[in-house]
């Protein structure tokens, strides 16, 4: 096993462990923080796989922006102890069974497929190369994604605009409806 190989296994273990801890936390702030660890690990994995730009973006966007957004939301609306019970048996037991099957099947398929077991070579795509590739071959998708982001901004703004005078009645009506449920 090479150094890089060892590095891969260590990082993978860290990611999985951090994720596993994160999804079992009752406290949402803890969960988010553990997840940041997991995402840092992922960024390292990306670097290892020769994608330095993506590693940087992972740290900036995922571990930075998105997770911070989560933290903001969690802290802003004090949703730390929303759940009475973290795991409800009727939900987690079947979910666990299916997840286990999934992992086993995925592992079996991955290992069983020929050509998968050759170790990966070290290669790297510099940010410049990557950028040239993207804007040469994927420019249209980039435009589409930019539109998506724009729409997301509008949607989020619209949702976050909060209560206005004209909406009160409608909201009250919906509340009443949900109270009936």
């Amino acid at each position: 096993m090479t150094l890089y190989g060892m590095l891969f296994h260590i990082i993978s273990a860290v990611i999985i462990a951090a994720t596993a801890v994160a999804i079992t936390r009752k406290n949402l702030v803890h969960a988010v923080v553990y997840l940041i660890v997991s995402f840092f690990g992922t960024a390292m994995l990306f670097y290892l796989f020769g994608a330095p730009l993506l590693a940087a973006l992972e740290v900036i966007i995922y571990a930075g922006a998105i997770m911070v957004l989560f933290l903001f939301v969690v802290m802003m609306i004090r949703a730390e102890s929303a759940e009475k019970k973290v795991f409800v048996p009727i939900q987690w037991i079947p979910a666990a069974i299916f997840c286990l099957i999934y992992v086993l099947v995925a592992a079996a398929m991955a290992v069983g497929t020929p050509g998968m077991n050759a170790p990966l070579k070290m290669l790297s795509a510099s940010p410049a190369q990557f950028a040239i590739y993207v804007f040469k071959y994927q420019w249209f998708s980039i435009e589409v994604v930019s539109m998506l982001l724009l729409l997301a901004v509008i949607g989020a703004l619209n949702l976050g605009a909060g209560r206005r005078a004209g909406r009160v009645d409608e909201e009250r009506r919906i509340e009443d409806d949900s109270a009936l449920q």
Partner: protein
Amino acid sequence: MIAPFSEVLVVAGILFALGAFCAVVRRNLIMIVLGIEIMLNAASIVFVGASLHLSNLDGQSFVLFILAVAATEVSVGLAIIVYAFRRTGSFDPGNFNLLG
């Protein structure tokens, strides 16, 4: 020489399963979104690994899009959660079973 691609797939598979488990099991809207993020992340790992495996930059460009979509999804999703919380005071997805 790093690890074989199959191991990358297994790691990503475990991560994906954890994300799915989180999304299905935790009775908290924020955790559901978090679970989705974990799943997206697992998918990104596979893409980058495959890009290396096949020496093709398409995989990496997909990760770029995944990042964008994840960002979008989180921003809108969290906005909805906040909105829903204001309306009902709850994060329990069991309270949001009224279709339409």
